[in-house]
């Protein structure tokens, strides 16, 4: 059996007195694509942000490649974050830099990559997301779909072992959703380990290895997409699916 790359043990997170994550124990194996679905406010984003410690867990463990992130010093956490790319709903590109500079910044400042090597890498990644002709554009001039693809390329520039996606298509106009999902599908085909929060059920069905259904601070169900969508076990999941599949 392969060793899991991410292991979550008894994770809990409170915001003040509000318990958002209650007790989550799950694992992600290398090469797996996990899709997390669940009602709004159920803590999906919070969970994802706990994985790379953008949010500090209240209790429990998050192990990455066998290291418990919650006990490491800042420096080591920064090093491990390099290996977990994250893509946000609102893109979060750096508006004062061109597309190329957005991608080059972290490799150059964190990995101390030479300028020309970083430029070469950035162009390769832009080709991968079909945007090489926009290398010198500034984020403000891009469409949402283009911006999100740049954001994916930027995360890939650190050569991560895992990619975390938090509703990457929710802020997009419908006609642009496809171009972003294609890029993600391509990544999955290449064997990237991915944890994706999304409402795109089509993507979950066709790409996910495993679907986690989250509600009330727990992972209520963890199953293959086929099993989950055809035969949800919990009442919570049945209820949720009946609402969104209408």
């Amino acid at each position, binding site marked *: 059996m392969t060793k899991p790359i991410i292991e979550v043990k008894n994770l809990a997170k409170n915001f003040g007195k509000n318990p958002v994550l209650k007790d989550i124990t799950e694992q992600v194996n290398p090469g797996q694509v996990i899709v997390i679905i669940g009602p709004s406010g159920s803590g999906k984003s919070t969970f994802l942000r706990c994985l*790379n410690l*953008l949010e500090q867990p209240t209790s429990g463990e998050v192990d990455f490649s066998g290291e418990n992130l919650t006990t490491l010093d*800042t*420096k080591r956490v*920064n*090093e*491990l*974050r*390099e*290996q*977990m*790319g*994250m893509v*946000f709903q*609102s893109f*979060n*590109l*750096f*508006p*004062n830099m061109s597309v190329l500079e957005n991608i080059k*910044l*972290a490799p150059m*400042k*964190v990995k101390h990559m030479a300028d020309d090597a970083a430029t070469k890498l950035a162009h390769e990644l832009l080709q991968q997301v079909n945007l090489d002709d926009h290398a010198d554009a*500034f*984020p*403000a001039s891009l469409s949402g779909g283009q911006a999100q693809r740049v*954001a994916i390329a*930027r*995360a890939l520039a*650190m050569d991560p072992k895992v990619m*975390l996606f938090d509703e990457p298509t929710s802020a997009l106009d419908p006609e642009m959703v496809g171009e972003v999902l294609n890029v993600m599908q391509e990544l999955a085909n290449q064997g990237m380990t991915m944890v994706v929060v999304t409402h795109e059920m089509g993507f979950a069905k066709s790409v996910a290895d495993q679907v986690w259904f989250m509600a009330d601070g727990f992972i209520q169900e963890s199953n293959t997409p086929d099993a989950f969508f055809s035969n949800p076990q919990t009442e919570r999941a049945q209820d949720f699916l009946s609402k969104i599949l209408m």
Partner: protein
Amino acid sequence: MKKRLVLFFALLLTLVTGFTAMTTTANAATDNSLTKIEKKGTLVMGTSPDYPPYEFQATVHGKSQVVGMDVAVGKKIAKDLGVKLVVKSMSFDSLLVALQTGKVDMVISGMNPTPARRKNVDFSHTYYQGGYSIVINKSDKGIYKDKDSFVGKTIGAQTGSTMYNESKKQTSGTTVKGMTSVSDLILALQSHKIQGVAMEKPSAQAYVANNKELAAIPSNFNLSASDTSASVAFAKGSTALVNKANKSVDQIKRENLVNKQYLPAAGKYLKTNTVNTSMFHYWKAFLTGIEYTLIITVCSVFFGFILGVLLSLARMAKGGVFKTALRWLATAYVEFIRGTPMMVQVMFVYFGLGLIVNLPALTSGIIAISLNSGAYVAEYIRGGINSVDNGRTEAARSLGMSSGTTMRYVILPQALKNIWPSLGNEFITLIKDSSIVSIIGVSELIFQSNIVRSDTYRGVAPIAVIMVLYFILTFTASRILNYFERRMQHD
């Protein structure tokens, strides 16, 4: 403002007297005032050069210089000591503080050795016995006869001077208006804001001789000898230096040098002075003013910006005891600086820090304005940093960038772009506010215009000139800043 200023001076003076009292008791046995000057080779004289013929600015061989009978007295003392005389200009109010903080070695500025002043400084014998006149507009000549004719009217006198105090004491029903410089008083007189200006007789004569619109009348103040005589002031306890200076002063008295040589010589400068009063004639003086104004502004913006960045980061520090203390200190600093007038800060740096290190006026001015500007810039930057979308910070952190790298490459550049207009405003404000350092004698635009005013006896023209010059400076600056602002617009 004025009141607070006086209060501040009083405070500073007590502070300084406290210090000097301490040092003098320690020095009573070993008075090294004389040997110190001899070792140094220079004797620094403080004076307020807007009081002809005592001391005033004149253009000598194309260069602006302080001249007058007091300067001649200073030269004589220095010569008898075998050292070189250095003249330092500042406002009359600042002179005694400058003496006590060691900025100057002596003060010769038509100063009367009053008992109140004697408490704080030592005086030489008197080198000149004068009297008071009141300068009025010639058109009013029939109306006013002496100090008692101004019932219901206003007379002016130099703030901090004996005339000011005596005018207050010895008139009733008359308003006494104080201003720092005599040229301002004359201007007020000519624009009928006040009806007379009380000043020493030789000064009155000089003004009347150089301005056909003016006339002098006797004051008939009832005065003691100490109120009408002029002496050289030294730091308290410098007996050896005073004794030595007294030898020179006694000779000046004995040979009547003031009336025979010094006053006529000063009069000559006054004459050449009034020949060409066109503003173009003084372009060099104005150019120096622009130069210093720009030096002060650019340096202060530069250092103020660096300080502002550090302060804003300190204000946002979160974490252990050390960081909390840092945040607390930075907040206190910003609040304090923003809650006190820049003028007081400038004086505090020059005179207050002067007790510890002897900084030149220009350096003090730049330090004070940088310290001031830093507090304001810190707030702009803090606002700018807070305005950067937190999502960008998280994106950078998720890429493995440390908080420092994120701050430097992601947050600060965006914050700066957001606050560029505020920083530009700060720069333009500083061009104007740097004028405050004129009070400690830095030759920036205002200071230079005051010199031109006392030089030419023309009140309004130099003000108009610097107004235009300030506008050209600020307008050019704002155009340049706009250009860069446009270039930074990417979204």
